[in-house]
């Protein structure tokens, strides 16, 4: 992910739109805007470059510094994913992949950086199976692939998460980019990496599909 922090989305390359301070294909800068007011959800949108506006826009929306950091990481996960070939049309068709990925990156990195402040985004572990559609694609799939917490252990209404031990790097290497789909993500994870819990990831991908 870090390699692409200086990049912008692929569609902007296609449209050949560059900001005035961007020096070239390999040295383009990422513009992050910040707003205090509540106007919209924070977002990454590579077409913003057409209007010479920031492609990542972070709204404070009452968040503390950890929350602002977490939201920024979430959007940078999208930047990285788009830089790898994912795009706006794919997002419209299926935002479950990019949003599940971004939720996981946000959770992992923010908890790593803000250790000792309590668990960040614990709420994703409090969702019942019957509510997964209400998540609108923002599933805890990546969180569940990494952590060893089974939210279904003491509450049978919640997913029985018996997978753990995958790293963010492994999950990113299997992440669908310009091609692939939800099930290809699962299959590539199994093919590419040895994990003692890999037989249990079928359940997670099926539950969150």
């Amino acid at each position, binding site marked *: 992910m870090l390699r692409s922090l200086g990049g912008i989305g692929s569609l902007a390359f296609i449209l050949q739109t560059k900001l005035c301070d961007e020096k070239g294909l390999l040295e383009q800068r990422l513009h992050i805007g910040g707003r205090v007011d509540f106007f919209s959800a924070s977002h990454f949108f590579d077409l913003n470059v057409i209007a010479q506006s920031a492609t990542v826009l972070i709204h404070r*929306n009452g968040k503390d510094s950890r929350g602002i950091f977490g939201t920024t990481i979430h959007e940078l996960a999208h930047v990285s994913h788009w830089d790898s070939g994912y795009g706006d049309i794919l997002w419209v068709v299926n935002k479950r992949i990019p949003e599940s990925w971004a939720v996981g990156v946000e959770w992992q990195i923010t908890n790593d950086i803000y250790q000792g402040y309590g668990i960040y985004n614990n*709420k994703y572990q409090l969702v019942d199976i019957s509510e997964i559609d209400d998540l609108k694609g923002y599933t805890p799939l990546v969180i569940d692939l990494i952590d060893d917490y089974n939210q279904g252990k003491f509450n049978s209404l919640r997913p029985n998460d018996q997978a753990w031990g995958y790293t963010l790097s492994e999950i990113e290497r299997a992440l669908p980019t310009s091609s692939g789909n939800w099930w290809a993500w699962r299959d590539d994870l199994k093919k590419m990496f040895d994990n003692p819990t890999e037989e249990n990831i079928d359940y997670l991908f099926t539950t969150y599909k």
Partner: protein
Amino acid sequence: MKTKKIIIYFLLMLPLYSCWYTNQPTITYTLVNDTDFDVSLVGYRNRGTSVSDSIFLSPNSRLEFERQMGEDSDSRSFFSIASVDSVRIVFDSKKLLVLTDSAHALLLEERIVKITQEDYNNAVPIEN
């Protein structure tokens, strides 16, 4: 050419902005006062020394707190600050319960938490 690009940009942006704005998931936390007493709660976080706004619950009532998930995920649960690690509960301004044990549902940040008669019984009288 530039005008054309800007028009295309706004045509693309309007539905997406409205989608982002209205299509974010939320989660609801519910706090229930299962006692016959007025209850007030204040949450504290040791790291960064933060104190929450007070929450007031009349006898046998409930309050719901809707928190954002998704792009602008809100890490708070019941209190106005995130990651509360201790709570003071006052019953009728007469008894005080201090929670510092993470085994209590309030500190575990379960989605539905009840303040019960047992909590009242565990509280100690406030000396004037």
